């Protein structure tokens, strides 16, 4: 087959779930964290898997015990003339008495502004994650969760009806945590309820739905 790389493939540049989980476990009160994320969905191009390199940088702050905020700027989108920012709260829903298990809920939103034609978009997002500090004397975390973007716009191009109200995903990851540094690796499977076999782009998934991706993150904490 002649290759047919075409611009919709890179629609993924602004696709939902384009970064690692910003805050797995709420930060300590007064703690600051800067982080960077790289990774994205994988597509099949010319018969070979091709990861889409989505990048972002973020800042998070521990407002109170069990409550943090984060904000991110998506640098790959920026290179394409689109300011994509995200902001979220991260609230501890529950934490085990031994402090080794916990649940975190993260409501937030992604904002887009296109410098070329001044178009804007806002997509609310909610994540629900569980983490497990699986070794007693180490801070490393295994985590997983579910989340979704929510579509506020009911109309698509040419007056067509947008029938996707949510764009859900599941995550599974590991966060290595040392004194002030952390490193994350995370797998995501998104849009699992939507067929992908009649699209211009061939997503790398085990099924004919959604797309999967691998993401990496690195963080540095201050003020702990």
């Amino acid at each position, binding site marked *: 087959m002649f290759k*047919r790389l075409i*611009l919709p493939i890179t629609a993924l540049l602004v696709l939902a779930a384009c970064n690692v989980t910003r805050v797995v476990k709420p930060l300590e009160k007064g703690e600051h964290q800067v982080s960077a994320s790289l990774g994205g969905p994988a597509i099949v191009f010319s018969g070979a898997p091709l990861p889409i390199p989505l990048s972002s940088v973020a800042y998070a702050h521990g407002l109170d015990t069990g409550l943090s905020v984060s904000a991110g700027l998506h640098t790959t989108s920026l290179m394409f003339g689109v300011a994509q920012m995200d902001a979220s709260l991260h609230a501890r829903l529950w934490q085990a008495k031994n402090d080794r298990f916990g649940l975190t809920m993260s409501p937030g939103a992604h904002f887009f502004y296109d410098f070329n034609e001044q178009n804007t978009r806002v997509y609310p997002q909610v994540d629900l994650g569980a983490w497990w500090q699986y070794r007693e004397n180490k801070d490393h975390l295994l985590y997983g969760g579910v989340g979704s973007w929510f579509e506020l716009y009911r109309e698509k191009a040419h007056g067509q009806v947008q029938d996707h109200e949510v764009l859900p995903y599941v995550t599974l990851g590991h966060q290595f945590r040392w004194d002030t540094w952390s490193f994350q690796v995370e797998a995501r499977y998104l849009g699992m309820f939507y067929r992908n076999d009649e699209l211009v782009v061939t997503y790398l998934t085990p099924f004919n739905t959604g797309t999967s991706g691998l993401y990496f993150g690195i963080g540095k904490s201050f003020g702990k």
Partner: protein
Amino acid sequence: MRRSITTLVLLLAVLGLSSCLRLDPFLYNPSTDIDGYYLDDFDGETEIQLDASYDLPDSTTHVFTLTSDLDGDLAEIYAIYLGDIARIAQDTVILYLHGNAGHLDYYWPRIKLLGNVGGNNRFGVLAIDYRGYGLSEGTPTEEGLYVDTDAAMKWLKDNGLTDDRLVVYGFSLGSAPATELTANARTLQPSKLMLEAPFASDEVMAQDASGLSIPGSFLSNLQIDNGDEIRKVEEPFFWIHGTADSYLNMETHGEVVYGNYDGIYSEAHRVEGAEHSDVPAVMGYPEYTKAVEEFLLIQP
């Protein structure tokens, strides 16, 4: 922490300054690694395959160049005419506008198939390699598609073609110049429009791929918008699309274009089980050429 923030700000400044990347060039996938057009002797991949019964006399196959002027950027573009050039002043001519991949050899069987509509060379067929495709000079651009197509129309007009005998056939990417130059005529006003597997707009592509209602401007500066331009077309319209098209979804692209047409006559051919590139083969070559012939002959 101050040093980290300074580094971060510098990084963002660099990225911000470089925020001129657009995805428009990814629309085009020309192949230029050829030293000539081999037509029947081409041994590379082609969109469809025809047996020898569809061969046409060599004397009716003409490969030549045209000069296309894009705001002073002159490019020699290659063209193939099937038929008797001396009869263009009397014949009906199909202007075939190919897709985003390859070059004329890749589409040669499709071009030849149109040369068989109604019998050998019953209708003239002109096909071009847009600038940057095959041996044509230049780099592909959206406006380049339009001026190259218009250059082909000028050549036809110079050889005696009139509006009423020009039929434009756009396949895939070719649906853009086909629709644009029918909706907003330049040198000639085509009398009929035929679109195979058209795309509605880059916005539909982006929305299909992302699942979100993102504007096309997030990704490209393309102004191609067949879904809206088709509203201006009054001329008879023939639409054909594979139901299993995994490249340009029939529902989100083709149906939108067809549904927005509001001219004097239209016909739709939804080819069951056909993919993006094999509509004529899946439909059956006799059935395909008959459908094209019937449309060419209608007088609405």
